[in-house]
């Protein structure tokens, strides 16, 4: 007897509306055994995990991005649809789909399910958050719903692991051809013509009839005829013909399909769900009364933000120092193991110095993502966008762009990563382009050094100190520059309609800790991976440029000054002289291209602060008293310090940001553009400040 071997494991996809608890279910099913990658050519994350069923079979589980519809409106939704159609290379067409539905919001969630049923893929309907539905007095007749839809239904409470085992058993049973077929119909004339078009698409594009039918509806219900090069002339001709005919019959194709679908959904809901709604305010309504209040809404929003950033700065300090000393400790071990020489120097100063100082940002990134996760999962994030949208729409952006901007006060990297929630591609790009203008934590060492050295302690009204005000102005300058640049980009380069603002305001929910940690941990891993690759490479190159050719020079200051980078710093002096900068600053700017705070350590090396322990002068005093031999005047004045700070507010001196931009935009074009526009902006504004300031200071 022949034994049928199942060589390839079955693929199960999880899909559902945003906020349906889809990712929680995925985490409950797979735990930490998940991989995050990207779909080819786009920045949409592909989350994959493995589960083992009781019969010993292994199953590959794909978590598809949250989607409202299979007619895609964002790159995320496009991926979800294409995976289900089996149109993505490297991702097999799922053998089974788990459609997660929020039991408190069945009606709208069923829309997506009805699209999936049309594709005739086996589906299990997962009714999640069944506990909350019970609390809200929603009675769901599960058997009736199941027989009306012709689908197995499993009730779950994903964040409490309820129903997970039952679901696993059902998965074992359900991987077989689907019985469920399309049950909603438009009027006969429309149905007939849609079938005709579906057949044409099926022949022309070699799609299955079910997928072709989906595309036929999409072609007929939008005015865009081409769907980004999808159509062939034959399909186009037929589409136009059908549209003309329907137009003559006074049938509105743009609404008929959706309305027919929703009519069927309404029928299903009426038959199987009873709402015992009283007109009392729900829990969410009560919270919303305060959180979106005209006055308190803003107060609480600002309070929450300041709390978050305050805690990121204070709570992250201890672990950051721990990591810092850990890196130093490893460095000192290496110093003992590897004999003194270039190799030791490369590892200790190049690799540990470069990668190590980037790694110290891990606690901040972790904390920020925990906080963003809390805001997102609790439902507050969409309220923040709701509150801020008017302001952001003034610069042509979406309310959702506000959060990335704010996150970037900590670090532009999570800021750029959090732009993923923005649906419109161009708006997302604009947000990513301006986000690094916000003053991140890496600028703080530069600000602190220069302010402490050059801005006198002077008090206004007894409470506002001048150094504090200068610091705040730098933050404000970044914010204003970001908003203005966003407006400019929206008006010129990335011209697009004012973004559509259709956003669900989900009910408030208590976030699951497990989810928060898994999510934040994924972000941290991504960050570390990058530190280990691109940043490692750049660190080595920078080390080489800062060490050679005079590698045998024992005086670090001289070695740096005569190195490639030192020579370059001196060569660019004519370029930066109009800004009031000398060649020493030039070297600092060049070495800190990797990251901004390197400026401080470079100044330390140039002025021999670390090496000459005898000298009691600190770096602050050293740079204050430095005399420019050419002019006989001080090289650093208060004006220089201010100009330098402005330069650091605006210039793109962060290789990690460039690296993440490359990843998120899939190419070097946008990071390169960002680098040049920011450098040009920094140069221009600093130049003006210097020219004006020289008359006063």
């Amino acid at each position, binding site marked *: 007897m022949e034994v049928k071997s199942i060589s390839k494991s079955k693929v199960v996809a999880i899909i559902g509306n945003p906020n349906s608890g889809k990712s929680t279910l995925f985490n409950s099913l797979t735990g930490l055994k998940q991989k995050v990658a990207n779909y080819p050519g786009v920045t949409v994350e592909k989350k994959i995990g493995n589960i083992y069923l009781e019969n010993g079979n292994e199953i590959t589980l794909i978590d598809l991005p949250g989607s409202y519809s299979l007619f895609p*409106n964002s790159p995320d939704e496009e991926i979800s649809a294409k995976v289900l159609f089996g149109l993505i290379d490297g991702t097999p067409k799922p053998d089974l789909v788990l459609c997660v539905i929020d039991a408190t*919001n069945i*009606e*709208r969630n069923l829309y997506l399910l009805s699209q999936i049923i049309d594709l005739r893929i086996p589906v299990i309907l997962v009714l999640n958050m069944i506990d909350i539905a019970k609390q809200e007095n929603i009675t769901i007749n599960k058997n009736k719903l199941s027989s009306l839809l012709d689908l197995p239904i499993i009730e779950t409470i994903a964040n409490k692991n309820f129903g997970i085992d039952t679901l696993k058993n059902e998965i074992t049973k359900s991987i077989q051809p689907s019985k469920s077929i399309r049950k909603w119909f438009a009027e006969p004339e429309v149905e007939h013509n849609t079938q005709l078009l579906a057949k044409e698409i099926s022949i022309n594009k070699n799609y299955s009839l079910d997928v072709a039918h989906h595309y036929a509806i999409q072609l007929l219900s939008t005015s865009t005829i081409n769907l980004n090069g999808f159509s062939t002339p034959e399909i186009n001709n037929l589409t136009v013909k059908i549209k003309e005919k329907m137009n003559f019959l006074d049938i509105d194709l743009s*609404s008929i399909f959706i309305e027919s679908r*929703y009519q069927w959904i309404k029928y299903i809901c009426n038959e199987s769900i009873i709402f015992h709604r009283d007109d009392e305010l729900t829990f969410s309504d009560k919270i*919303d009364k305060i959180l979106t209040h005209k006055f308190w809404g803003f107060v609480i929003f600002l309070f929450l933000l300041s709390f978050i950033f305050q805690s990121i700065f204070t709570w992250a300090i201890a672990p950051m120092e721990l990591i810092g000393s850990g890196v130093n400790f490893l460095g000192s071990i290496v110093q003992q193991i590897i004999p003194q020489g270039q190799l030791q120097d490369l590892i200790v100063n190049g690799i540990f110095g470069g990668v190590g100082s980037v790694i110290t940002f891990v606690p901040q990134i972790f904390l920020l993502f925990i906080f963003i996760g809390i805001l997102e999962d609790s439902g507050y994030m969409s309220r923040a966008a*709701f*509150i801020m949208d008017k302001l952001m*729409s003034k610069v042509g952006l979406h309310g959702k762009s506000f959060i990335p901007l704010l996150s970037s006060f900590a670090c532009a990297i999570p800021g750029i990563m959090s732009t993923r929630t923005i649906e419109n591609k161009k708006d997302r790009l604009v947000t990513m382009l301006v986000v690094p203008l916000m003053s991140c934590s890496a600028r703080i060492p530069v600000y602190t050094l220069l302010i402490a050295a050059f801005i006198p302690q002077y008090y206004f009204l007894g409470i506002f100190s001048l150094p504090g005000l200068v610091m705040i102005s730098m933050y404000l300058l970044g914010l204003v520059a970001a908003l203005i640049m966003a407006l400019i980009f929206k008006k010129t380069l990335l011209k697009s309609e004012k973004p559509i603002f259709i956003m669900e305001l989900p009910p408030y929910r208590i976030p699951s800790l497990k989810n928060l940690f898994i999510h934040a941990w994924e972000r941290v891993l991504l960050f570390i991976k990058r530190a280990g690759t691109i940043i490692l490479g750049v660190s080595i190159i920078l080390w080489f440029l800062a060490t050679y050719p005079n590698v045998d020079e024992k005086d670090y200051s001289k070695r740096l000054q005569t190195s490639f980078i030192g020579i370059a710093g001196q060569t660019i002096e004519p370029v930066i002289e109009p800004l009031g900068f000398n060649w020493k600053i030039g070297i600092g700017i060049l070495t800190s291209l990797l990251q901004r705070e390197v400026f401080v350590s470079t100044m330390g090396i140039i002025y021999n602060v670390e090496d000459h322990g005898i000298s009691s002068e600190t770096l602050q005093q050293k740079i204050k008293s430095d005399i420019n031999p050419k002019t006989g005047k001080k090289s650093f004045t208060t004006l220089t310090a201010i100009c330098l700070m402005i330069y650091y507010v605006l210039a793109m001196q962060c290789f990690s940001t460039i690296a993440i931009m490359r990843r998120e935009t899939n190419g070097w074009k946008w990071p390169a553009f960002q680098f040049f526009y920011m450098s040009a902006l920094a140069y221009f504004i600093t130049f003006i400040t210097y020219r004006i300031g020289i008359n006063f200071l």
Partner: protein
Amino acid sequence: MKDDEAIMLSQVASGTRVRIESLPSNQNDCHRLRELGFCEEAEIRCLSNGDHNIVCEVCNTRIVLNTEIAKQIHVKPLNLEIIELINLPLFKKAKIFGIKNIDSNLKLRLMEMGITKGTDVEILRFAPMGDPIEITLRGYRLSLRKSEAESIMVSKS
């Protein structure tokens, strides 16, 4: 003729919206009409009224009835006030009437989120700066800009 008086469907002028009050007494006819969407309380539109038959729009489908049957269906004209959603007072329930001819992608998205004809809708609040607004429909909450809410027409009844 007063508005709240029931009339025969055969008397309804083209283009008028009516609500069905009663169906024919014949059980068979009544059953068939119900299957087609003609049931009590249903809102339908008379598309054309000729000598022998009448075309009605019922649940998005066109159905032709002969005048004999239409005489046995009693309806009441609907006095609908159609306004932009944005002009609806806070907490006042209304039914979606349709979406103006706007960018087809926006229209598609709005409809996919459940803003379809006949859906109950209500404005819950305005954002602190007056824009966007929060509405409720199909048991969930949605936020839209005023500019988008301007293209959604609702009927106050």
